[in-house]
């Protein structure tokens, strides 16, 4: 039988190879899944993973999808690195959209505050406020942040639902549950005419680079890495655990809020019940695929964005159900976690012992 034995030192090679092996295994399992669904596996995989590169518009769409994933994935990478499990990025994203919506809908056009930065900052602040709830409960009452942040995701979705069906509803919206369209000043400018690619892409790259610098070059980054890897050592070194929990939750919440604000002010242009908050869960996989490294999260975001666009194409071209995307993402994370264990452990063939 095969046994896992601890390595003397973590394997650098496996740390690099693991995501690639996991993607490969996901492709193989995906081919099997497609065959089971009665599809030609080669054609299905082509649509899923290559068709997003077919033309310039599709390629731009991949980047559009990658922006919120990268913003949230980078924040979560820092969070998870510090061993803080914020899994409510979807809720913080929703609050970000609500905050941006409030600014865009209620600041009059002649006000000096009627500029794009205001809804974006409002969104980031709302995301931070939403993440402050699990931060406060964990640091003051040691309540598990996983459950609180996740519960708040449902609350956020219902809050948005209430706003767009109730007080903020557009009375001339032909019965659709949505707000008025945002005014012109509250639209994120496009980068490339004829596509939906917007300047949020720069923000995503800047955030990832900035967080990478922070994690690798600053004392704060060192503290977070030590706290996550060896909490006892961190306590002996006098690092404040509470301060770090606040920092990473506000950081990841703020970035998720910014992602939600960008989504509302670029792609959607108004508030409605469905604003793509599901990306907050995909971002968890992005963070892991990127080795819990903010720059890696950029790459991870691109990979998952390709599969998201490919999934949409497969829905149209092959009539494959949209849930295939969730199956793929779950498989990818499973394979990734299994491969990651080969960073710390070495598989060895041993003779079976009698118990």
């Amino acid at each position, binding site marked *: 039988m095969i046994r*896992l034995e*601890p390595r003397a030192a973590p394997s650098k090679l496996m740390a690099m190879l693991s995501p690639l092996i996991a993607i490969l295994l996901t492709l193989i399992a995906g081919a099997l899944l497609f065959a089971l669904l009665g599809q030609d596996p080669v054609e299905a995989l082509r649509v899923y993973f290559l068709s997003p590169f077919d033309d310039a518009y599709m390629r731009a769409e991949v980047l559009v999808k990658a922006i919120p994933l990268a913003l949230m994935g980078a924040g979560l990478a820092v969070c998870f690195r510090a061993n803080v*499990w914020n*899994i409510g990025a979807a809720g913080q994203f929703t609050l970000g959209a609500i905050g941006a919506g409030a600014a865009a809908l209620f600041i009059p056009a002649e006000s000096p505050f009627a500029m794009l930065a205001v809804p974006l900052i409002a969104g980031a602040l709302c995301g931070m406020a939403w993440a402050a*709830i699990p931060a406060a*409960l964990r640091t003051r*009452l*040691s*309540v*598990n942040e*996983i*459950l*609180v942040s*996740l*519960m*708040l995701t*449902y*609350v956020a979705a*219902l*809050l948005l*639902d*209430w706003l767009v*069906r*109730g007080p903020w509803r557009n009375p001339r919206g032909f019965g659709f549950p949505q707000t008025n369209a945002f005014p012109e000043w509250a639209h994120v400018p496009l980068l490339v005419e004829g596509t939906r690619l917007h300047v949020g892409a720069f923000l995503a790259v800047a955030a990832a680079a900035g967080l990478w610098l922070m994690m690798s070059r600053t004392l704060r980054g060192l503290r977070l890495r030590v706290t996550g890897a060896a909490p006892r050592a961190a306590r002996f070194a006098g690092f404040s655990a509470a301060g770090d929990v606040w920092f990473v939750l506000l950081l990841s919440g703020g970035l998720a809020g910014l992602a939600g604000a960008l989504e509302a002010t670029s792609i959607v242009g108004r508030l409605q019940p469905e604003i793509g908050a599901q990306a907050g*869960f995909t971002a*968890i*996989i992005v963070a*892991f695929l990127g080795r819990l490294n903010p720059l890696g999260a950029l790459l991870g975001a691109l990979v998952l964005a390709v599969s998201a666009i490919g999934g949409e194409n497969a829905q149209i071209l092959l009539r494959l*159900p*949209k*849930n*295939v*995307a*969730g*199956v*793929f*993402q*779950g*498989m990818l*994370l*499973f394979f990734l*976690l*299994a491969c*990651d*264990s080969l960073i*710390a*452990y070495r598989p060895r063939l041993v003779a079976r012992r009698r*118990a």
Partner: protein
Amino acid sequence: MEAFVAAMIVAATPLLFAALGELVAERSGVLNLGVEGMMLVGAVCAFIVAKSTGSTAAGALAGAGAGLAMAALFALVALGFSANQAAAGLALTIFGGGLSGLLGRDYVGVPLPKPGPLFPASWAEAIPYGKAIFGHDAMVYLALASAVGIWWFLARARGGLKLRAAGDNAESGHALGLPVLRIRFLAVLFGGAMAGLGGAYLSLAYTPMWGEGMTAGRGWIALALVVFAGWRVGWVAAGAVLFAAVTQLQFYAQGWGWRAPSQFWAAAPYLATILALALLAGRRTAGSAPAALGRIFRPSS
């Protein structure tokens, strides 16, 4: 009021199944965050089997089996490969959400007959609140019976002692010759079967139909229940009933003249979970969480 109490007991059943299963897994030292995913796959498999065989019992069995299979996947990654349990559980939830939607896509909105009550109707009419006590289908009583059985197993049985040892101090248990990983594996599988039953109850009896994401966070509420029950069976059962009452508010509150937007009542269970976690945080004695919960254990020899 009798209708409310009866509805509360029905709504508590899926929470009770899932939370009891997770309790057993956590007492063995494994945190499986994939309850929501296991419930969803259990729900859809139960529905498909019940629809094609016409038997609720076959459906419930299929739900338990599906939950067990999902848990095996988690156990392979989290125990076999020593992966981070939180991450593996999240993977299971994401995977289960996708898989259940895929399996159930031809069954959305298809009706299924509700299972009948276990006891004769005359019993329910004989006493006040009889309907709330005797008016339910077999799965409700199965959930109650399993609560008693699990309490007995953990508190009184030899196997329960071994299971708790694996969860409180894996290294010592291993040194004493306990097969820690095997115990944990079995506990996780049991947890999966129970989560599957919880999901099955939702699609077979509670609604009864299949809808994508129909568990609506109940798997997560079950996880929270285990925490604020301090990993004790009796408190899990009490918590499940309390939470079920909150989930039923959205159907009864308007009728009682309590005015608030419907979204507020729908959000109430989630808000109540957070509130309960916060309020009970200080009261919990330090020793109540399994000491090795969520910690990776690899036998050294």
